Structures are given as C-alpha cells and as structure tokens.
C-alpha cells in the first residue's frame, strides 16, 4: 500500500506541475511514466463511496465552512474589508492557544471561545488603532495581524514544549487537516452555520444598508455599530470553525476568493451571496477530494487552489465582468465609433457639395479626415462590408446605401443637437463644444435625443449655422427604399 500511495502523490504532483508550470514538465516527465492509473481510480472510488467515516466528516466540514465563509465573505468584499478576514484569522491564534491551555486538551468549545474572543479583540484593536492614531487602516490591520500572530506563535511553541502539549495537534491549526475533524467539531460547525444563515436572513436588510451606505443607515436609525460588531462576531465564529480544516493562514482565502468570484458573476447582493455560498461549498468539496486522492496532503491549500481555479474561470469567462467579454465589447464599441466617424466624414463632404452628387471619392474623404489615401480606402471597404456603402469597381469612390445615409444623418444630428444643447442650455461658447460632441455623439440613445429635441424646441440649425438633419428627412431618405418606418422609431445611436 505505501508504494501505491507514493505513486499517487507523484502522479498528482506531476499533474499539477504539468498544468501549472509547462516549463518544468520535462523534469517530471520521467515520473509521470510510472503512474499506475488504477491507484488513482481506486482512491477516487473510495472517495465517492463515502465509506470512510473520517472522509465523511472531512467532506461535511469542508462544505459547511465553504458555505459560511462564502456568505460572510460576500459582505466583507462589498464593504471593502477583504483583508480584515486575513487579520482576524491570524489574530485568533493566541486565542486557540489560550483555549488549549484552559484545561490542557483539545476541547473544541474552549478553543472556540478563546479564539472568538481573540478575534474580536483583534478587530477591536484595529478600530482603536485607526481611531486614536494617524496610522492608516492597512497599517493597523498589518500591525494587529503581526502582533497577535507573533504572540500566538510564541504560545504554540511553548505549548508544544510541554509534555502534554506535544501530542496536542495544535500545530494542525496552522495549515489545517480536514481528516482530523471529529464528530464534535462537525456539530460545532453545523451550529455556527445555522446561526450564520439565521442571523444573515433576519438582518439582511440591515447588513445590506450598512454595507453600502453606512451614513444612510445611521440616518434611518439603524444601530450601525451594533450591526458592525455583530457581523465581526459572526466572522470570528466562521474563522474559528474553518481553522481546523484550512488552517490560520488560508482561512482568509476561503473568505475572499469565492466572494470575489461571485462578485464577477452578479450585480445583486442577494444573488452574490448565494453564488458565493455555492462556490464555497464546491471549493470545499473539491479540496477534500484532492487532498484525499493524495492521502497525507493538507486539505486547506487544495481548497484554496480549487477556489482560485473557479476564480480564474470567472475572471476569463464571466458574462459581464469577465476579461474576454470586456475585451470583446470594447473591440465592438471601438469598431462602431470608427465606422460612425467615417460615415460622418462622408456626410460632411456631401454636405459641402450641397448634396448635388451622390458619390464621394477616396481622395476627398482622405482630405476631409486628414488621413492617408490607403487608410480612407480601408475605412470605405469596412463600410461596404457592413452594408452602409457600395464601392463600384474601378471608380475609387463610394456611394452610401440608404441605410448608410440614415446612419450618417443620425450621427451628425446627434452631434449638432449636442452642440446646440451645450451652447443654449449649458452656456458654452460655440467654439468649445465640438470636442465634447465628438465624444458623446456615439453614446446618445434615443430617449436622450428626444429630450434634447423637446428642450431645444426642435431647432433646425446648430450653433455654427449648419442645418440639423430633421427626423422627417432621415425617414424619407430611408423610406425611399422600404416605404417608411412605423412612427417615431427613426433610430438613433447604436445599430442593432
């Protein structure tokens, strides 16, 4: 059996390294060859049969703590207190040691009480430090973290030196070992989880208000300090129950990472809390699974890595806040702006010629936009691809389609309306309005254009004396082809 364990470990390590450090893969390639696939499957089967009692405890514990940490972490994150979790988790260490010293054994209740008190003391010290000194909050957090943790390390070393403390397993609190969870630990975790759910459910409105606008909460008569301290108490509870499974150092990760992931996935707090709970549970379960595969491996780091993996997925693929979506929509937006600018330039050339002819040569366009001939030809081809213009072969000129004309008029109309608005309503001098309008013309939606029209009394000339294309004009050009649009929806701004 030891041989298979070893191969499992080697296999897992090899996989990890392959996955994470492609550059190192050669080094471990030899070892991957030694894998005995069976042993991994055996171990995985053992996991899913849930026969091991210690495995059942570990899994339940991991899921419970993932749930609680995800829930409280969401509130921490939106309150911009992410690292308070880190500080509290380090600050509980002396409390754990003191709880152990109470009757020299690993009594879950004594340790729980001691650690909670130490955590609360830590969060109180941070508040006092920032209130009474000129130190910034991050320094105060770091101060409390380091000071309390130092004291904790001293105490733990002293306990381990004692004859009775040697086998105490108190060092397990540093990195966590979910396999060492017992039935009484699980009961405690379940109690805390139920308590957390109940309190958050009851006081959701208060927590929400205090998280986003403490000043408002104070004005409507909510007991802001009480909500804050109550929340800190819950946080200390959850940190303490998570300690045994993930360890002091990595609790903060379970608080921050699932919450940050769900922050990327949702814009509503209640949805964010629910998603964070689910993500926390999933990372807890995955962590327990991986750590079970590799046998003696600590559970905490695997939970954290699973949570981080989920975060990376959300970071890349989140529907609205993911990097890929952002990049894509930025690209689409800049393409649209580029096309609209070309259309506008074409319109200006046509307007200069008083619409006596239909085509615009590349040369004229290049002169109007002050760019090279090649660049203007390229932007004309782009218009053709989008169906806004036709480029008859061999003519070096472009003719707007009805749709292209409509778009060009719309954008010029947006521009001139905005210029007029700035001079009339905001008292800008007429020579200062162009740059502003140049930016806003691409963004103005239909509603705002309607408002502008009303406010400007359906004016027909912009501050520079140029005519503003009227809605009727836009419809009639378009209508030449398709017989007119239903009333009012002349369309402004964004193409569909």
């Amino acid at each position, binding site marked *: 059996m030891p041989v298979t364990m070893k191969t499992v*470990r080697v296999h897992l*390590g090899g996989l*990890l390294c392959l996955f*994470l450090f492609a550059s*190192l893969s050669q*080094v471990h390639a030899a070892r991957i060859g030694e894998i005995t696939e069976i042993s991994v499957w055996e171990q995985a089967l053992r996991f899913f049969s849930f026969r091991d009692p210690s495995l059942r405890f570990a899994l339940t514990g991991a899921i419970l703590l993932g749930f609680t940490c995800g829930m409280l972490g969401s509130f921490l994150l939106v309150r*911009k207190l*992410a*690292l308070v*979790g*880190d500080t509290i988790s380090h600050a509980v260490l002396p409390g754990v040691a003191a709880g152990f*010293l109470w009757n020299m054994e690993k009594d879950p209740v004594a340790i729980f009480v001691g650690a909670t008190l130490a955590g609360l003391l830590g969060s109180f010290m941070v508040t006092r*430090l920032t209130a009474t*000194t*000129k*130190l*910034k909050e*991050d*320094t105060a*957090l*770091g*101060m409390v*973290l*380091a*000071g309390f*943790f*130092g*004291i904790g*390390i*001293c*105490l733990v*070393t*002293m306990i381990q*030196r*004692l004859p009775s403390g040697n086998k105490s397993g108190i060092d397990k609190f*540093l*990195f966590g070992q979910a396999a060492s969870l017992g039935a009484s630990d699980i009961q405690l975790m379940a109690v805390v989880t139920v308590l957390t759910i109940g309190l958050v459910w009851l006081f959701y409105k208060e927590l929400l208000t205090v998280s986003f606008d403490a000043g408002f909460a104070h004005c409507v008569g909510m007991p802001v300090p009480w909500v804050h301290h109550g929340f800190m108490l819950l946080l200390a509870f959850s940190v303490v129950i998570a300690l045994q499974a993930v360890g002091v*150092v*990595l609790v*903060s*990760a379970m*608080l*921050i*990472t699932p*919450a*940050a992931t769900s*922050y990327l996935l949702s814009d509503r707090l209640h949805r964010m809390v629910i998603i964070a709970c689910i993500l926390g549970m999933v990372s807890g379960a995955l962590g327990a699974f991986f750590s079970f595969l*590799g046998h*003696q*491996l*600590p559970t*905490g*780091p*695997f939970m*954290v*890595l699973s949570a*981080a993996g989920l975060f990376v997925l959300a*970071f890349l693929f989140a529907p609205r*806040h993911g*990097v890929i979506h952002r990049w894509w929509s930025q690209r689409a937006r800049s393409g649209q702006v580029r096309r609209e600018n070309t259309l506008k330039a074409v319109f200006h050339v046509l307007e200069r010629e008083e619409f006596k002819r239909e085509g615009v040569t590349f040369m004229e366009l290049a002169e109007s936009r002050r760019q090279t001939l090649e660049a203007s030809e390229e932007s004309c081809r782009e218009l053709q691809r989008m169906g806004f213009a036709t480029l008859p072969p061999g003519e070096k000129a472009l003719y707007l389609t009805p749709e292209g004309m409509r778009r060009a008029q719309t954008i010029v109309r947006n521009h001139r309306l905005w210029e007029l608005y700035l001079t009339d309503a905001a008292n800008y001098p007429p020579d200062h309005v162009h740059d502003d309008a140049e930016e806003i013309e691409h963004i103005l939606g239909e509603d705002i254009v309607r408002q502008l029209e009303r406010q400007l009394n359906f004016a027909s000339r912009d501050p520079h004396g140029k005519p503003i294309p009227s809605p009727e004009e836009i419809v009639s050009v378009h209508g030449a082809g398709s017989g007119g649009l239903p009333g009012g929806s002349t369309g402004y701004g964004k193409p569909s």
Partner: protein
Amino acid sequence: MSELIPAWDWQNVVVAPWTTDLPIYGWIVLMGFFVCAACGLAGNYLILRRMALVGDAISHSVLPGLAIGFLVANAWTVGGSADDASAAGGSSHGFSYGLAVFIGSLVAGIVTTLLIEIIHKRTRIKQDAAIGITFSTLFALGVVLISVYADKVDLDADCVLHGEIAFVSIQPFLSFAGHEIAPAPVIRMGIVALLTLGLIVLFYKELLVSSFDPGLASSMGIHATFVHYALMCWLSVIVISAFEAVGAILVIAMLILPGATASLLTTRFPKVMGLSVLHAALSAVLGTHLAIWLNSSTAGCMVVAGTGLFGLAWVFSPSQGLLKQWLRRRKTSQESVREPESEHTGIEGA
C-alpha cells in the same frame, strides 16, 4: 500555568547571553537585527504607500518561488548530490541552490505584483481583495508543492512560518583568508541589510517623491511604475534572504512594526528611518532575552518584543500617544468647567 512560564533566572536570562553564551546568542541577536532593520527600512515605504499588506502578501507568495527554485536546482544536480545537499541543511546548498532560490523568489515577487495589478485593473475587484486572492493562492500552491515533493524539497511548511533563528549560530561559518568570520546566513543577511540601506541612500529622492506624490514624481521624470516594481523586487529579495533563517512571521511583522512605531513618535521621514532601525535593534535584543526566558520561538518572541515597543509608543508617544490625548481632553474639559456659560467650549470638551 507554572509549567508554561519558567521561573525568572537573572543569571541565565540576562547575563549569560552576553558573557558565556555570547558565541551563540551574539549571532542570533545580530541576525535578528539585520532582518528587522532591512525589513523595517523597506517597510517604511510600504507604510507610506499604503501597501502595508502587500508586504504580507509578498512574504507569503515567495513560498512557491522558493519551492520551485529548490526543484529546479534539484533537477540541475541530478544524482546523489541532491541527498547530500539536503542532508547538509539549510544554507550550504552551494551556489546553484542559492541562485535558483534567489531567482525563484524574485520571479515570485514580480508575479505577485503583476497578478495583483491585473486582477485590480482588469476587473472591478478592489485592490485589497486582489491582494488577498493572489497571495493566498500562491501560498497554497507553495504548501502543496512542498508537501507533494516533501522528499525533494528541503523545506518544512511549519518551519517556513516560524523558522528557527536559534539555529543560525550552528550554521557553518564562512571563512575568509583562513579565518572563520561568521555564519553564512548572518553574512548574507548583513549584506542584504547594507544593500538596502545603500539603495535607500542612493535613491532617497526618487523613493520619497514617488511614495508621497506620484504625479510630481512623473513630472520630475521619475518612472513611478518602475520604482514600484523595483521596490517589490527588492522586497522579495529581503524576504527570501530572511526566510530560511527566521521564517515568514518575523518578516511580515518587521515590515510593519518598526515603521508603525516610528511614525507614532515623529513625523519627519529621516527620523522615522532612524527610529525604525532603533526599534529593530531593541526588538532583536529584547526578543532574544524573552525567548531564553520563556524557552519559546525566538522569531516569535522578537515579534512580541516589537509589538510591546509599539504598545509603549502608542500609549506614551509625546505628540500623539493615548496618554497625551487623554491629558489634552482632560485639560479642555476642565477649561470648559471653569467657564460654564460658554456653551461652545462645553461641546468641544465633551
């Protein structure tokens, strides 16, 4: 409790370290001082830049760099030499180990800084959460690497957290021209501390301006981003050279404690620098005595001593200490009692 705290023994705790046991404790104190001073000097800039917790982050996230450095070095010296090297203990791995670990930690420092920036800039996640995600993930990665390759990496996760500075004096001595001068880690840390001081003296203006006013810095032609990354890199060098000997906890604490204590006592930056070095020296000495008395982790005791000094400064600082604030409040309220008709003063005193 009595078995937890040993009896106070003046001779053993206070006198002996400076007389009979000087060859042991001298090096420990010196090493502690070098670590605390180097961290304290660099930490001042972290505090100024409101990045106190970035120091915490970097000292956690160099762990995977360290582990990968070890693995790579092992791959280089395939064969029997790996076992010999790990048997010989912490610092005598020879040049390739030193270099691999050094590069690994440097890369880890840069990667941490980059990841924090990317998460912070590319998404709507705030900087503190980005710091939290980055360092905890990297630390977890480091712990996993160490436990998977426990037989290959001469590191112990516990030891990394609160490494034992007390072993510093039994490390092999570095000899020069036939004379044994000092244990190798002490020499290394001394060089790092001196280099830190030298770099700060050399780039004092750049560091100061870019810390207080990045806008002014860039108008003076100082590349603020470059300064930021350079500071982070140097931070990881300090962290890594302190790591093996004293563990992460002393580093994290000493990045913040000296600067925070000094800034309670004065507002002039050069004085802050001087006071933080003084704080480093005091906490190294007091911490050693405390550790001898309590028979506890030396690094942990140095942190406790440093925290104690901070507590003293908090209460007794002549300009902004708690005592001073209390006296000032009392004086104001007494004045307001003396002239009860002035409602305005009464409100101020309350």
